[in-house]
């Protein structure tokens, strides 16, 4: 039933996974800062959990440095060095936190088994305080991830738009969902690309099994049935554009119920 299968499994994988990686071009765009925040967040979560993509990302990053080192210099204006040196005394003590720590934490996520490195990426983008999981559909609860100014831990972040995220040309929904063990999400398609990054538990569809760190990419035209593996709840970061296109009556019903 399913159509295109887009998956980047070529990259090497350790014994423990993740097995479903970020496609090369998407990783490059992430490394050079050209992904919108929503997609960048999903990729960052994968990279945080995937040693191979992390190494690849560092290598791609290193190319930028190598380009800089091997590039021809431009002529600086006269007095540029003196101007630079003159500013140093005003900032003689180093600025910013010393040891790079793990940053923010997401206690509710950790309690549910979300890896700490991923929690650090999500926490600044979630509402303060205990996470309030909202009903989305039978077996599905979720919390919206706030983008935009949410990168700044200040007040403005928390009052940012909750669901209608806009980063560059992106519009769509970014959520962390909690899926009941054994839940079957009926066959549905997508109008826009949907990214799902599994945080805990496992999701199974025609492409394969998606465990923590695995990234599922469904492009417009794909349809799939997803099943949550029995035994454990599945938490996932889900990013989609205009939502789901249900293929079945049950799916349509869920969509009606799930409409925000």
């Amino acid at each position, binding site marked *: 039933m399913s159509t295109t299968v887009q998956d980047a499994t070529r990259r*090497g994988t350790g014994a423990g996974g993740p097995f479903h990686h970020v496609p090369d071009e998407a990783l490059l765009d992430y490394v050079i*800062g050209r992904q919108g925040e929503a997609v960048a967040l999903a990729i*960052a979560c994968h990279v945080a959990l995937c040693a191979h993509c992390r190494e690849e*990302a560092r290598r791609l990053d*290193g*190319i930028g440095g190598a380009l800089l*080192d091997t590039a021809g210099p*431009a002529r600086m204006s006269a007095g540029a060095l003196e101007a630079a040196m003159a500013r140093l005394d005003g900032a003689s003590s*180093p600025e910013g936190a010393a040891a790079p720590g793990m940053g923010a934490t997401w206690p509710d996520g950790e309690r549910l088994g979300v890896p700490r490195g991923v929690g650090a990426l999500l926490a600044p983008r979630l509402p303060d305080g205990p996470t309030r999981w909202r009903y989305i559909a039978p077996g599905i609860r979720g919390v919206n991830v706030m983008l935009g100014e949410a990168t700044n831990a200040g007040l403005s972040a928390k009052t940012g738009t909750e669901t209608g995220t806009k980063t560059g040309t992106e519009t769509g929904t970014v959520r962390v969902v909690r899926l009941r063990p054994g839940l079957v999400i009926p066959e549905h398609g997508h109008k826009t690309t949907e990214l799902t990054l599994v945080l805990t538990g496992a999701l199974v569809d025609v492409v394969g099994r998606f465990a923590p760190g695995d990234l599922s990419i469904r492009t417009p035209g794909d349809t799939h049935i997803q099943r949550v593996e029995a035994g454990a709840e599945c938490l996932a970061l889900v990013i989609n554009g205009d939502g789901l296109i249900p293929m079945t009556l049950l799916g349509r019903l869920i969509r009606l119920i799930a409409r925000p």
Partner: protein
Amino acid sequence: MLHTSRNLRPTMHRDRLPVRLNDGRPDAEALLGEVARRRDKAAFAQLFAWFAPRVKGQLMAAGVDAGGAEDLAQEVLFTVWKKAHLYDPLRGAASTWIYAMARNRFLNSRRGKASTETDLFDPISPISPISPTAEEAPAAGGDALIMAGERDRMLRSALLELPEEQRQALQDVYFSEQSMRESAEGRGLPLGTVKTRVRLALERLRVVVTRRWQA
């Protein structure tokens, strides 16, 4: 595959690696360390002399006018002074760190976005996923450090060996805000050609680096 390099001990065949440091590049990693530890102005001046003209040049190549490029280069190097203690050699070469800061500054200036500590793209962000993880950090003894340094040295020499058109294509991708499509249009080339050049260049760099690791 790249991951094989993680298990190699570079010290074993270190003297067989090509050394291309006679190109006038200062030992930027050591200089950055001096700036971080001793607030050493002479070390900073050396970093400035090497990097400021190169940051400026890359920004100009990306379409920034000379004045704007010089201002951004000044800002980037001033940030180097202020944040030198946040540089982690395990993540890569000093030039990679400075490149990432320059790119971040440049993109933010174009997007009208303020750079923040937790920005996903900010190389000095404590949560940047490319930064060494908690598990990696304690093991960051000599080996990991040497490996990161060697990788960057090899990238530099491999880059110099690329055909000019591939190097140019990479340069466009890494230093401008344009998409590959826009950069193709700007150069009057089909998009497919630009994509192919970038892909070939990346593959070439991967092969060269991997082969040298395994030599």
